[in-house]
């Protein structure tokens, strides 16, 4: 029921009780993990590092969605659209104005955040299903805008060729180098997400999710905090979109589409809504599933020769849909909840409760 502490560990102060990382060995383990990750490109294959880059970018976007949907309870199908905004902003700033990547990334984050804020405005009036429809509008308006507006700058449906980022004289043009960038940003976004979730802001978010009327009568300004959630989610999407655009080196209106938004929402459900671990677990599991589909595709195709060309493409949505359905039925609280149960069981072993 309550939080289980390992045997012999006592919360001797409130600060210690509230700490995220509690033991010296946990700090050591964390630093070892981070060090191992930073040195990973030295011995991992290029394919693995590229996969990790992709996964990290998705994790960042899902973390943003988690703040909005998982904590604040505002379901959004617009996350990929805000990635498009972030991608275009930093691509244009680097390509046309020769901006350094860091300020361009910052501008992408803030720019996407402001656009997210605009599409969050309906949240004052509409909730649930109707808000999903309102955020879906972003998914249609923003790609349409990039295709049809300012043709000489945005280059219409063909989109932009994006330069790889350059920082401190290093050009991040290989997956290995790019990994330094994505990993650093992931650490930053994770720390910020954790800070939000444990602070006054996060409690205001959750109180809106759990009982918005009570929250309002307890002094939470609903509109203000919903907009802040939309802003934060879009900032995360902007960072992810910028990273993805400069990694792919190409960007058009279809780079991030509606199915990406749906996929990210699915990842969040699989990982666990409103948990710090959720985005990590969900994104990794779904990315692995997609990889498995790529590997299994030819095998499946050999059994069904008549559908050979479509097998790989069909297998991805099939596996994703199956995973999502199984999670909704058997573990709607996601893998993060499973992990909590496992930890509790481990601490109580050999007893069952």
């Amino acid at each position, binding site marked *: 029921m309550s939080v289980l502490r390992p045997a012999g560990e006592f919360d001797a102060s409130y600060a210690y009780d509230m700490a995220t990382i509690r033991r010296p060995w946990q700090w050591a383990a964390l630093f070892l993990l981070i060090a191992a990750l930073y040195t990973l490109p030295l011995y991992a294959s290029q394919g693995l590092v590229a996969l990790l880059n992709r996964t990290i970018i998705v994790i960042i976007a899902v973390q943003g969605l988690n703040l909005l949907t998982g904590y604040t309870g505002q379901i959004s199908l617009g996350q990929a659209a805000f990635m498009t905004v972030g991608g275009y902003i930093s691509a244009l700033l680097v390509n046309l104005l020769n901006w350094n990547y860091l300020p361009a990334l910052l501008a992408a984050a803030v720019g996407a955040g402001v656009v997210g804020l605009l599409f969050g405005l309906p949240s004052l009036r509409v909730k649930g299903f109707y808000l999903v429809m309102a955020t879906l509008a972003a998914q249609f308006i923003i790609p349409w805008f990039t295709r049809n507006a300012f043709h000489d700058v945005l280059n219409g449906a063909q989109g932009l060729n994006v330069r790889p980022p350059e920082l401190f004289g290093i050009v991040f043009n290989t997956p290995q180098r790019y990994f330094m960038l994505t990993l650093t940003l992931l650490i930053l976004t994770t720390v910020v997400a954790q800070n939000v979730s444990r602070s006054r802001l996060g409690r205001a978010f959750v109180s809106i*999710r759990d009982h918005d009327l*009570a929250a309002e*009568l307890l002094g939470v300004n609903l509109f203000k905090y919903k907009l*802040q959630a939309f802003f934060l989610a879009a900032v995360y999407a902007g960072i992810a979109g910028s990273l993805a655009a400069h990694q792919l080196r190409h960007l058009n209106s279809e780079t991030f589409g509606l199915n990406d938004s749906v996929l990210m929402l699915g990842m969040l459900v699989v990982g666990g809504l409103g948990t710090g671990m959720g985005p990590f677990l969900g994104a990794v599991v779904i990315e692995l599933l997609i990889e498995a589909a790529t590997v299994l595709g030819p095998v499946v195709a050999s059994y069904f020769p008549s559908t050979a060309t479509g097998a790989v493409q069909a297998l991805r949505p099939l596996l994703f849909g199956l995973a999502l359905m199984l999670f909704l039925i058997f573990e709607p609280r996601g893998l993060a909840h499973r992990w909590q149960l496992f930890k509790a069981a481990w601490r109580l072993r050999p007893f069952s409760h």
Partner: protein
Amino acid sequence: MTQPEVLLSVENVSLTFGRVQALAHVSCEVRQGEIVAIIGPNGAGKTSLLNCISNFYRPTSGRIRFAGRDLARVPASRIAPLGIARTFQNIALYTGLSTLDNLMAARHIHMKSGFLGCLLYWGFGHREDLAHRLVVEEIIDFLEMQHIRKAVVGALPHGLRKRVELGRALALEPRLLLLDEPMTGMNQEEKEDMARFILDTYERRDVTILLIEHDMGLVMDIADRVIVLDFGKKIAEGTPEEIKQNPDVIKAYLGQEHGTL
């Protein structure tokens, strides 16, 4: 002896939904340091009155003043900072949070960390959380909730949830506490516990209390004054003794044949 100041005054308040008159020209006053009970049969407008006071409903006509201030122009989210806290008839806790976090969430109005402060958290945000944790722990002690401090409230039994909700209202440090049926669905022992907590709150925390309750024995025991509503109208107001004797109340609320309480 001078009378204590009027904390809350409801002046000629009416509330209509379409053709349903939920409240009709209700006037009443609550003075600093009183426990006032609102009673009345189901659908009498008790909760509607409370909802008007907490600005969840806007009265169709009339005026509500708190500490001399007209509440008509105050948005719902500014009611709590003025010093009005409430609990709900059907518990409205943040079910996904622990008892501790429910109370911490109620400290919102007393905390100052801004948007960026929360993103960075270290330093001021952390210190502020610690300071408010002390206040919250005091309330947890006061309401004897130590054993459920870290329990997710969605999984708690009804009686405890009611207690957590009282704790959450106290965490706002209100001047006026509105309790909407704090004892529904409780057994005798839980009711007595809750009555004790309400009286303790009143005595030790300098809170004025306006409560709705159906348990007559309890109302008669703890209330200084009783207001009786029936079909949206105030039909009586007075000390518990006076209310017991009032023929209108006996007729409207208890049925004619009972005669006495």
